[in-house]
């Protein structure tokens, strides 16, 4: 269930916007490579599920609970986040990720329909807590490359990788 109600202005118009209660979301017109047309419903579902995955990621890293990842992450994305949670637990660290803004664009829809790749110019706050002491809170900007694959009920994040904007 979405924690915040997402209001979609227009999903596919260039420079369209979506506003979430916590994070502002902008969806650029898709710049697709590949022969398969992307249906609006498919794009909407993939973006909705990706935005939900940020909430899941925030909770999992804050509570150091890898089991929370299962709903939204799969494959190497899940494995890497699980490793991070294990490292945090071992070191007595918690991190709090709060997404503030997303600028999204779908860039690839594989011909078999089994993966969608999108880019996200994201802004988020990271708080570092060591043995219950807050060490810092930083605003970070990064360009995420995300690959989603369909599961029974939703799109799950399979690749979740950031670089400088």
């Amino acid at each position, binding site marked *: 269930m979405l924690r915040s109600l997402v209001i979609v202005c227009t999903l596919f118009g260039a420079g369209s916007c979506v506003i979430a209660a916590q994070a502002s979301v902008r969806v650029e017109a898709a710049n697709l*490579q*590949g*022969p398969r047309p992307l249906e609006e419903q498919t794009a909407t579902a993939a973006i909705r599920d990706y935005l939900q995955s940020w909430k899941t*990621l925030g909770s999992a*890293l804050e509570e150091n609970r890898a089991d929370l990842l299962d709903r939204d992450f799969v494959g*190497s994305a899940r*494995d*890497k*986040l699980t*490793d*991070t949670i294990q*490292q*945090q637990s071992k*070191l007595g*660290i918690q*991190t709090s*990720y709060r997404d503030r803004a997303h600028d999204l664009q779908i*860039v*690839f829809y*594989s*011909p*078999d329909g*089994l*993966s969608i*790749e999108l*880019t996200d110019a994201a802004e988020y706050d*990271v708080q*570092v807590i*060591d043995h219950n002491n807050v*060490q*810092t809170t*930083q605003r*970070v900007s*990064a360009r995420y*490359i995300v*690959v989603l694959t369909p599961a029974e009920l939703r799109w799950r994040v399979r*690749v*979740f*990788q*950031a*670089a*400088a904007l």
Partner: protein
Amino acid sequence: MRARSKILLGLLVAASAHTLLAQGSALTVPKTVEAGAGFSIQCAGSGKATLYIIGTGQVLKREVQLGETTLFPAGSLYNAGRYLAVLAGGATGTGEFDVVPAHQPANLSFLARPSRLQVGLHDGITGAVYVFDAYENLITVPTQVSFELSGPSGIAQTRSATTRDGAAWTAMDSSAREGTDKFVARTGGIVSTRMIGQVPGDPCSLKMNARQSGQQLELETDPVRDCSGNAVPDGTIVTFTEAYNGDESTVDVPLKRGIAKVEMPAHPGAIITVASGVALGNQIRWGR
């Protein structure tokens, strides 16, 4: 021992070639680190402090001596992503840097579709690849990928594509001959293979012959083939229709050993036709 230290220092210097004086000026962090490579972070000041490296891909914590360079040996950070360096304790400061994927591909995620299709279909086979390094990081710099579709008789088609954001795709025609083809994606010495079954298409043309046997006509087709000359599989339905004196009777017969056979009444003046799928065969008017 001294030589090993020199090599390590050399690697660290290379990794730190682009360094940034971080916010608060107590930290100097590299701008980028290649996944799995060693690197160093300089912490200004004196005394001791705690250095945190924080990302969604990994988390590290080190007790550091301020005023000295903290060395992170090869293999310390291997998951690509944006990382925060946070100094706390005796001094404070923060910095950001990126761990970037290694340049050498080590793994291809190759999605080929379908696994079975008819021969002779234009762009009937598609393949998509994602290129990863040895640490399962998506290599995002443009990378050349070649695709080959080959059958038992050799390479039938080749294509090449350059990845964009780590992904590339291609489309191939299914070949003219039935059988199993190898669909190969290749980059930087990494090969991934999928098998594609190619089956005959629909009948292309039909020809039947008639022979009287008592009060019956024995109708039999020639071997049924698709437009590429492949034998159409047994079980494909062939329909014989006999029209006589305003009545019409129809018999559906599956192909057996490549041909269809049926017996129908030998009415003088009857018109007999044969069809399968969209292919219409010859017509016979049985003599009076």
